[in-house]
């Protein structure tokens, strides 16, 4: 089974702190994604990586950066956390080949910024 793990299920940080969210997948997937999920807004793409050290901005990249130094690991960084970044953060991955584009999601990290 594909497994996508995230470093924390719950996280509480203070405004202005630098926050790291880690995601690891064990299926040798080329693509990895970070989403945030807010009530009534669905899942919104923050950043996407299609290879090691390669990244693309998603729909809401402001206030976030990412790092992909190894194929299996994709990190989301909040340079200076703000209260409007309180949200559920979901990591996902999929293969970059073939005709089935299914994304596999991690369990999510619920981040609260106070």
């Amino acid at each position, binding site marked *: 089974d594909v497994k996508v793990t995230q470093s924390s299920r719950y996280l509480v940080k203070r405004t202005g702190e630098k926050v790291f969210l880690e995601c690891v997948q064990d299926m040798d997937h080329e*693509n990895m994604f970070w*989403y945030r999920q807010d009530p009534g*807004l669905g899942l919104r793409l923050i950043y996407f990586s299609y290879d090691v050290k390669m990244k693309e901005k998603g729909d809401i990249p402001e206030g976030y950066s990412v790092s992909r130094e190894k194929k299996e690991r994709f990190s989301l960084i909040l340079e200076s956390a703000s209260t409007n970044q309180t949200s559920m953060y979901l990591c996902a991955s999929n293969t970059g080949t073939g005709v089935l*584009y*299914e*994304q596999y*999601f991690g369990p*999510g990290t619920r981040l609260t910024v106070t």
Partner: protein
Amino acid sequence: GQQVMQIPQYQHVQEGEDFTTYCNSSTTLSNIQWYKQRPGGHPVFLIQLVKSGEVKKQKRLTFQFGEAKKNSSLHITATQTTDVGTYFCAGPHGGSNYKLTFGKGTLLTVNP
């Protein structure tokens, strides 16, 4: 960018009733995917539709892709309490099949 509209936002049914959620796009989609997210859980892939007019069934769930490939639906027959959750449709994002744009989802609650 690509937008996928999903209705209704909420649906409450009695156990045994049917349920349908609809997904619409302003542009033609090369494919559409459906995901289910249980309360407290994460989205889990259900199915991918590719062909115009395609209909696929998974037990009590029926998925359709419109002839123009701009709309899709998920129908659940005789809902059960295990069907509770949010159902999302998702289409290709920015021309890439591997990135997705998600609808806002339909939250289904089932009264036993």
